[in-house]
């Protein structure tokens, strides 16, 4: 900001001095300092990618990528170890699937209610309640799944309610159900933003043509907000895949390739936690497996997040 000091005749009363060189350097220094803060984020991403690739590459020198992707059993600690990621990834996807079956209808329904049905007062009361759901630590959800939901399904809580009396202590179903509840706020808030962004004119046009509220919502508003709603689904899926504590506590540590939700199975995240909390010093194959599995996990969530980003951009641009 170089403002000329003094008038055109060279008169300068001596008070306004403009920006001195010292001041200019100070400003540049501060800008550099703040920029460094921002660039730490790049360092973080570089760090994540580097450490995952580096340690995983050590693992892949022992075990071929083909074996990793194609083998159908996982037994990392046995004398004849097998490393089929499909086993762990399948568990992740089964539990994620159960969670999405819960979270998508409930989250979307809640979003519809909050954006189109609820009065302002009701909205103000219910939105914070949903946010509380999002703020509960996941270990608490895990504890709840293990000590309440599983016994409930077995019939130990209410004598008249026992749908699965033979349910094992560790099972994918309880973990999936509770995880579904955990991601309801994610789906609900992003969907609600998308529904809210639909112009009033569209709704009013439908009402003017004699549509009921139900018809307007399902045939006009939701289709109009579809890309945002899809983004919320994908974000919910990404969160479910990356979730650790609920599955580590409630779904068990038995690597088991199965589609039966009443079975116990170990997800990718539960495996990492299980190995990291045991005695596996750096340099062992077991240590390196957690980075290989971590790399797979990171890639899955990264791809999902990028896809959801595109969907968000689409719905933001339409209006």
């Amino acid at each position, binding site marked *: 900001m170089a403002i000329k000091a003094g008038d055109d005749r060279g008169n300068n009363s001596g008070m*306004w001095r403009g*920006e001195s060189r010292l001041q200019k350097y100070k*400003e540049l220094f501060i*800008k550099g300092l*703040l*920029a460094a*803060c*921002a660039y*730490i*984020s790049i360092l*973080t*991403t570089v*760090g*994540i990618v580097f450490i*995952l690739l580096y*340690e995983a590459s050590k693992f892949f020198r022992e075990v071929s990528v083909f074996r990793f992707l194609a083998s159908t059993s996982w037994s990392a600690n046995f004398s004849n170890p097998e490393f089929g990621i499909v086993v762990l990834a399948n568990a992740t996807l089964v539990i994620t699937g159960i969670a999405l079956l819960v979270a998508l209808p*409930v989250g*979307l*329904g*809640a979003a*519809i*209610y909050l954006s189109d*049905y*609820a009065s302002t007062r009701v909205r103000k009361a219910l939105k914070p*309640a*949903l946010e509380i*759901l999002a*703020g*509960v*630590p996941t*270990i*608490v*959800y*895990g*504890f709840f799944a293990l*000590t*309440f939901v599983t016994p409930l399904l077995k019939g130990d809580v209410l004598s008249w309610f026992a749908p699965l009396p033979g349910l094992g202590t560790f099972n994918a179903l309880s973990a999936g159900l509770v995880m579904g*509840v955990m991601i*309801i*706020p994610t789906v609900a808030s992003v969907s609600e933003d998308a529904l809210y962004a639909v112009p009033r004119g569209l709704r009013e046009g439908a009402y003017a043509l004699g549509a*009921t*509220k*139900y*018809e307007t919502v*399902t045939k006009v508003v939701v289709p109009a907000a579809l890309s945002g709603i899809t983004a919320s689904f994908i*974000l919910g899926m990404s969160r479910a*895949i*990356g979730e*650790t*504590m609920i599955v580590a*506590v409630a779904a068990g540590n038995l690597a088991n390739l199965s589609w039966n939700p009443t079975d116990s199975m170990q997800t990718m995240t539960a495996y*990492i936690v299980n190995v*990291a909390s045991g005695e596996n010093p750096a340099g062992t194959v077991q240590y390196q497996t*957690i*980075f290989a599995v*971590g790399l797979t*996990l*990171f890639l899955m*969530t*990264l791809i999902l997040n990028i896809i959801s980003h595109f969907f968000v951009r689409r719905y933001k641009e339409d209006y």
Partner: protein
Amino acid sequence: MSQGTQTPERGAPTPKQGGDYNPRIGTRHWAARVFKVLVLAATLIGIFVLGVLLFDIGIDGIPRLSMDFLTSGGSSSPETAGIYSGIIGSLWLVSLTALFAVPLGIGAAIYLEEYASDNWLNRILEINISNLAGVPSIVYGLLALGIFVNYLGPLTGGKSILSGAAALSLLILPVIIIATRESVRAVPTKVREGAYALGATKWDTVRGHVLPMALPGAMTGTILALSRAIGETAPLIVVGAAVYMTFTPNGPRDRFTAMPIQIFEWTGLPQEGWVSVAAAGIVVLMTLLLLMNSIAIVIRNRSQRRA
């Protein structure tokens, strides 16, 4: 009312006799009512489950609470176990995390909002930050394990509070940046322009005007981010938090435990008595979170009232 010209009928068209127009008004209104109940139920399901969760944990945990519980460390029997080492560890962690993440986060947010021009490099920066916000917390644990615990082991003390705090700081940094950017963006342009018009430099306006006005919002976001960090378990397990500790750490390079870690450990123990110990630990943890969130909300409401 003129002779000769035909004026068209105004008003609702009457259905022709024997036509096939069937508005099915009754059915459609009934469907609309059912749908309304369904979406209301959807909204309440989550809240209902939350209520059941809090009730169940309260019933198990509150009876187990006592001063002894808060002041005893880990133990091998459920009757004498306490959450003291967890509380100390969590306090150490959140202090160090705040120390690292808050200045970095606010600094980065100020840079992105006030200083960065809209070129491709800065857009990459923004995309990068929003991607980092979606990375699973366990990946941050792996990052800290590989780099802070192992490669920088001599510097950080290995599986130490420092490494744990590093993992948590990096985890919540994107959250703090995004929240602070929102509040900085909310400061009216007129405030900045007024300062510039009076000859202030950029840093003068930021430090003297923009930052003070953005601070309450930034503080709210920061406190919420820190409360998330307190509840995080996975990255700490990966970094190597101890699950069984009877002594408390003396410095940032010592081994540590944390409240969520102890809860995790207790939840996994088979004896019947540990359930209530874990539940009591959860009550302590969630009370702390409730406290922090309330402070954040109070700050937000007070600043909104002043504005």
